C-alpha cells in the first residue's frame, strides 16, 4: 500500500528527501525543487492525516523548500569569481552527506549483528583476600546499572509504568492565525516582535511564521517596514 506511510521510517527531513530523490530516480545535484516540494508537502500531509506527530524539523525543511522555490524565480546570483550560484547546492550537499552516513550506518549495523552473537564470560571467582569492601561508589553503581539497562530490551516493558512522559508542546497554526487576527482587530497594527513571548520556543517561532505566511498568502495582512532592519509592522489589508 503506497499510502501506508510510516513517519517512523524517516529519521528526519533529510531522510524523507533522500527517499523522494531515490524513488523518483533524481540526481541529488539537480533536484527539480518544485516537484520535490510538492511531494514533500504531500507526504507531510499524509502524516497529518494519519494523525502522526511531526517533529519541528520537518516543518522547518518545508519552509526552506518553499524559500528555495521562490529563490529560483529570481535572477541567478554570481559569486566573486563570476560563477553562477545554484541556490540548491547547499541542500544537495546535505542530502548527499546524509546519504553517505546512512550507507555507513548500514555497515555499522552489519557489525552489530556479529557483536550481538558473540559471548564473553565473567571473571572466574577467586576469593583472594578477606578484605571487607568498605567503600561502594554509589555513582559508579548507578553507572553500571545504566549500562546494563541500556543494553537490555526488558525495560521497554516497564517503560509504560515508569516513564514520565515529557509533555510535548502543541500549537496549531489555525489557533495562531486566530490569535493574530484578534490582535489586529483590537489594534490597527501589530509589531512583528510583539507576536512572540519573551522566550519563544522553536515551535512557537515556526508556527507563528507559518501563520503569517498563510495570512499573507490569503491576502489578509500586509507587512510594512519603514527602514532597513527596522521593526516590521503588520496591518490588515
Amino acid at each position, binding site marked *: 500500500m503506497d499510502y501506508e506511510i510510516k513517519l517512523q521510517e524517516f529519521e528526519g527531513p533529510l531522510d524523507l528527501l533522500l527517499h523522494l530523490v531515490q524513488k523518483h530516480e533524481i540526481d541529488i545535484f539537480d533536484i527539480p525543487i518544485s516537484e520535490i516540494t510538492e511531494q514533500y508537502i504531500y507526504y507531510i500531509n499524509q502524516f497529518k492525516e494519519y494523525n502522526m*506527530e511531526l517533529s519541528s524539523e520537518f516543518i522547518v525543511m518545508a519552509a526552506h523548500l518553499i524559500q528555495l522555490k521562490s529563490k529560483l524565480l529570481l535572477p541567478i546570483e554570481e559569486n566573486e569569481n563570476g560563477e553562477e550560484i545554484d541556490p540548491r547546492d547547499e541542500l544537495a550537499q546535505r542530502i548527499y552527506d546524509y546519504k553517505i552516513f546512512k550507507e555507513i550506518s548500514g555497515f555499522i549495523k552489519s557489525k552489530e549483528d556479529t557483536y550481538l552473537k558473540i559471548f564473553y564470560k*565473567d571473571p572466574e571467582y577467586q576469593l*583472594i583476600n578477606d578484605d571487607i569492601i568498605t567503600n561502594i561508589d554509589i555513582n559508579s553503581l548507578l553507572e553500571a546499572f545504566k549500562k546494563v539497562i541500556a543494553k*537490555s530490551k526488558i525495560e521497554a516493558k516497564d517503560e509504560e509504568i515508569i*516513564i514520565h512522559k515529557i509533555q510535548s508542546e*502543541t500549537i496549531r497554526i489555525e489557533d495562531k492565525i486566530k490569535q493574530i487576527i484578534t490582535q489586529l482587530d483590537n489594534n490597527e497594527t501589530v509589531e512583528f516582535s510583539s507576536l512572540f513571548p519573551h522566550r519563544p520556543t522553536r515551535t512557537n517561532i515556526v508556527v507563528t511564521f507559518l501563520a503569517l505566511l498563510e495570512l499573507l498568502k490569503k491576502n489578509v495582512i500586509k507587512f510594512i517596514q519603514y527602514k532597513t532592519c527596522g521593526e516590521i509592522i503588520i496591518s490588515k489589508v
Partner: protein
Amino acid sequence: MDVVNLKAAIEAILFALGEAISLQEIAQALDTSTEETKKLMDELVDGYNSGEKGIQIIQINTKYQFCTRPKYHEYINSLMNERSTSGLSQAALETLSIIAYKQPVTRVEVENLRGVKSSSSLQTLIDRNLIKEAGRLDAPGKPFLYETTFEFLKYAGITNLDDLPEYEVFVASVHSQEHEEVAIQID
C-alpha cells in the same frame, strides 16, 4: 553440521555457559544424540589434554565444564589481586547494581539483563557480604532470590534503599522520543 563444527559448537557452549552442563543438554541444543555428543566431548577433552594447555575440560559426575589448569594458579592470582585492589570488578559491580535496583531478584533475571552467566559474580558479592539470599521465588525450580544486605547500605553510605539515585529519570531519558515531537497542524 559436520563433526568438526559440532566439536567447535560444544566448545563455544562450554565457554559461554561457564558452569557445568550435561551431555543431554548439549545434545539437545545441537539436535544430535547423547551418544554422538559423548564421542565428540571425549575427543574435545583429549584435545585439551594433549599438549600443554592453560585450560581444560573437567567432568564432574555427568557434567562438563571448562576451567584453568591448577599449575597456573599463581599467575592468575597475582593478576586478580592487582585488579581487585580497586574494589569490585566491573562484572561484580554490574551484578550488584542490578540487585540493588531490582531486588529481590533471581540469578536468571540478573543473567538475562547482563547477557552473561553471573554465578561467579554472585558468589563474589555473597562472600563480600554485599548481597544475601532472600527466600525462593514461587516459580518452577524455586530459584533463590537475592537482595542487598545491611552492609551494602553501610558501605554505600546510604541509610535506606530509597536513597539510591533514581533510575526512573534515566529510563525516561532513554525511552523518551528521539525527536522532541511536536504536533503541528499544517493546512
